[in-house]
């Protein structure tokens, strides 16, 4: 299958997976697009606990947003700057207390790219914005910084209360009550909210808010891999999704007979088999320039897989 060349730029330009090996994080896969030099620099890199962005996410057991490389702990600043990458988000993937991997996505800044990658953290029984990267959506950033979500409210509060990933459509109207006007102005349409389980019981929710012009993804999928829902181990059901090309990826008429992914078959199957995130491109990514599959573990077992394609 040929890689689809969409005309619009995507919000995320690079995605990479770092996995623990002995006492270091080493690169197990990455999609770098046109940024060969940054890829080159990354292949020779590794991180101890607390070192660099992936090491920080590991050590602090929380998702970390980094919006400014200069003068920071980011280790590949020169290489990133050289190709125009300006910001990064690291998401640790824990199964119980075991670190399985750290997913790092990097974004390029310009005046038009709009979207949001947000990290929400619970403090005193309420979700507050820990940090976020918004590209050109500066007003929306300001609004988010001044918004809080109680349990069950909004995309972050909904993810927190249900402890499952949620894919919201039409954020402009969906966020009408809190961040609507601003979301609408920023052109943010679709939102994926994902629980980020970490050892110690702290609550983190990652949200990816996508705008039509510079989508974070052109296709979102949520797979349910819980034993309590799917029965035999190592399969997952596609329970929700939306795709620019195919439309809705769910069908209530087909409830109970959803698409099933089997362990080791395809990129989602590989997430099921390994419990690790995957990043793919080209044919392996269904013809998209980039596919990210992120596992969500609950109680030490794989519960969901979210995938986005751009």
């Amino acid at each position: 299958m040929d890689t689809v060349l969409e005309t619009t730029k995507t919000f995320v330009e690079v995605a990479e997976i770092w996995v623990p090996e002995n006492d270091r994080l080493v690169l197990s896969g990455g999609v770098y697009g046109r940024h060969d030099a940054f890829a080159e620099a990354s292949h020779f890199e590794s991180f101890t606990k607390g070192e660099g962005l992936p090491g920080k996410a590991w050590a602090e057991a929380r998702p970390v947003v980094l919006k400014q490389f200069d003068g920071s702990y980011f280790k590949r600043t020169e290489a990133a700057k050289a190709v125009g990458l300006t910001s990064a988000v690291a998401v640790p993937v824990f199964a119980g207390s075991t670190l399985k991997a750290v997913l790092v996505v990097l974004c390029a800044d310009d005046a038009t790219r709009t979207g949001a990658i947000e990290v929400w953290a619970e403090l005193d029984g309420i979700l507050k914005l820990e940090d976020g990267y918004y590209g050109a959506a500066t007003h929306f950033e300001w609004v988010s910084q001044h918004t809080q979500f109680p349990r069950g409210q909004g995309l972050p509060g909904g993810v927190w209360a249900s402890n499952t990933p949620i894919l919201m459509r039409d954020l402009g109207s969906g966020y009408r009550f809190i961040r609507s006007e601003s979301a609408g102005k920023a052109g943010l349409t679709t939102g994926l909210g994902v629980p980020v389980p970490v050892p110690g019981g702290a609550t983190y929710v990652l949200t990816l808010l996508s705008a039509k012009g510079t989508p974070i993804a052109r296709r979102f999928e949520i797979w349910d891999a819980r034993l309590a829902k799917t029965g035999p181990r190592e399969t997952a059901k596609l329970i929700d999704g939306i795709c620019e090309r195919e439309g809705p990826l769910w069908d209530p008429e087909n409830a109970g007979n959803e698409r099933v992914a089997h362990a080791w078959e395809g990129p989602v199957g590989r997430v099921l088999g390994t419990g690790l995130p995957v990043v793919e491109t080209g044919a392996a990514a269904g013809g998209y320039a980039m596919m990210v599959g992120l596992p969500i573990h609950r109680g030490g077992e794989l519960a969901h897989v979210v995938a986005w394609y751009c």
Partner: protein
Amino acid sequence: MEKLVVIGAGMASGRLLEHLINAAPDRFEVTLFNAEPRGNYNRIMLSPVLSGEKSYAEIVTHDDDWYQAHGVTCRFGERVAHIDRDRKVVVGARGEVPYDKLVIATGSDPFIVPCPGHDLDGVIAYRDLDDTNRMIDQAPGSRAVVIGGGLLGLEAAAGLRLRGMEVTVLHLAGHLMERQLDPAAGYLLRADLERRGITVMTQASTKCIRGDGSVEAVELEDGTLLPADLVVMAVGIRPAVALAKDAGLSVGRAIEVDAQMQTSDPHVFAVGECVEFAGQLFGLVAPLYDQAKVLAATLLGEDAAFAPKQLSTKLKVTGCDLFSAGDFTDAPGREDIVYRDPARGIYKRLVVEDDRLVGAVMYGDTADGNWFFGLIKDGTDVSDMRETLIFGPAYQGGAAADPMAAVAALPADAEICGCNGVCKGRIVEAIEGGATDLGAVRATTKASASCGTCTGLVEQVLAATLGDAFAVPAAQPVCGCTDLSHEDVRRLIKSQELKSQPAVWQELGWRTPNGCHVCRPALNFYLLADWPLEYRDDPQSRFVNERKHANIQKDGTFSVVPRMWGGVTTAAELRAIADAAEKYDVPTVKVTGGQRIDLLGVKGEDLPHIWADLNAAGLVSGHAYSKGLRTVKTCVGTDHCRFGTQDSTGLGIRLEKRLWGSWTPHKVKLAVSGCPRNCAEATCKDVGIVCVDSGFEIGVGGAAGMDVKEVERLAKVATEDEAVEWTVAFVQLYREHARYLDRPYKWLGKVGLDWVKDTLSDAAARTALVARFDLSQTVYQSDPWAELSTRDRARGFAPLADLTLEAAE
């Protein structure tokens, strides 16, 4: 081409059109009326549209292009005024359309509770896209009250919450979705919704909706006032049959059809929620689709017959995983198989009858739902897989969760012994230092050395630390429903803040769906004693005497004992008692050992009436049947007696007025004697006070029944106020710690009088106990006679009734 007119563009008629167009695209010239200004969309997916998890565009089944491509003439947004069957025309607002065949698919209307205020602005139903948009448009932070805790109401509540509203769900029944779930699953669902910040009120009856033009509040029958900006009625649907009725078609509860979906007119058919078939109505989509298929065949001249099937239910609230199918009510000959995993919030219950699965309820783990549903539908003989059935088709040898795991998982600083403030880490330290049995741990750390309720927990820490080297002594379990002892259950009700019986059953892993006649009365007491404000007393978990508020006699009649405060009565009261005895042909009137008058031989159906008569004379129930305060016996004291040292009668009356109505683990009898001659026999009572010149000697733990025992001194106090305070504090301590059906002397034998003395010697602890007792009395100090002798309640005393959940004695 035949002219086919369809009224209603819902899911059933939409499916019908698909079948017709697929099978014979040129057979019919179709005109489709719809009162809504849009075509067919997947109405059951409105909830995720409300929550924002789906867009309306995604749930449109037939868009304009579809209708155009298939030559369907759409008359959307146009109400049908009437059907003229003689002329075979349908008359719409914009003109009439002739038909050869007519299909009525008008669906249903939401049922609006006709309470005052139901027509205020802001009171809406939840039925179509317009209702959904109305909810979406509601301002952030608004307060919504959803009336109805069924499928639709809960989906609305979850969606509104996700939209940023403060949501309260009112439900008339005792648990949510009572038609689909049993109380245990209902409890888990409620907990799940409460985790989302939704307030759930069960047994909540709406009295009226208040507001000046638009909604301002909802008032409940119990007087509770809930401020509201939006009220969503989701209490049910009624088939929309007005058009059919006006047209003279045969209509019962809905439009009557035969198995071919034909109405009483051979040219008119009906499909969907507006039909009644064999006395049955339909609200779920699966039978509607079956009807559409049958009707398509009928219209095409083919043979087909509609037959209703078993249905299962799905709640569309992200993260709430429940499944229910078949029949799971209790009935003779039915057997339950129950699996609970409290740590994972899983509850599964299968109901088996005659070796066949007849019902299944699942919460948290629904992977095997469809498999169980298949077994129910097919009537499969499950006798060969009975033992492993609950684990589903891919039985993996799963077993109940290890109860030790919870203790093992406790952190070192978790407090194990509340009395002596000993945490787990200290106990583990002691064990590692050589204290390898309970006695040694007690000696070293003082853990479980006081009231003893943490003994089981200490033993579990021993077992978790020592492994096989320590054998946990088998504690006597409450009953066959659980392995936990009474002490464990009491401790866990407090520490885990379990506030309902379903919460106890689920979180403590009960093996039965809803307890048994042994555990239910005990749980009912523990819960009402520990959570007087939150827990609601369950009459069905009481022994027959407490349920009837009278002692049943061996001939089936009852005894009635009015309260006589401190054993003191008046001529007027005695006259009222005498009148009542004559009026109701009471065969025996007897003075009791507790200084009361017992009317023996009252017929069950006379109880409310005799209570009402006695009430009218100012007499209230003497609770002579209850596990609660029975009597306070007194002597005449200083008022009349030459030897009296204090006002024993006055103190007795004061104590009785303070303590009456309170439920206790077993019956409690008090006495106050005015001097050491002890005419009131205070020294063999649960609490006996002997007055002396210098004050009051308070003795506790006496008995004069199967066991005879003299009281032991709890304290000597100088004033009457102190005597009352100590007594109330003692009774409350007993209420909070004793095992159900242990009289005080038995309880004291277990915890030791020293611990009780130590506890009550602390003035602050005493004050707190008294405060907790008084708080409980705000709920429970009420006269059951006054409450139950009203006409509505009195019906319950008429002879009948086999209540399946009743606990039998």
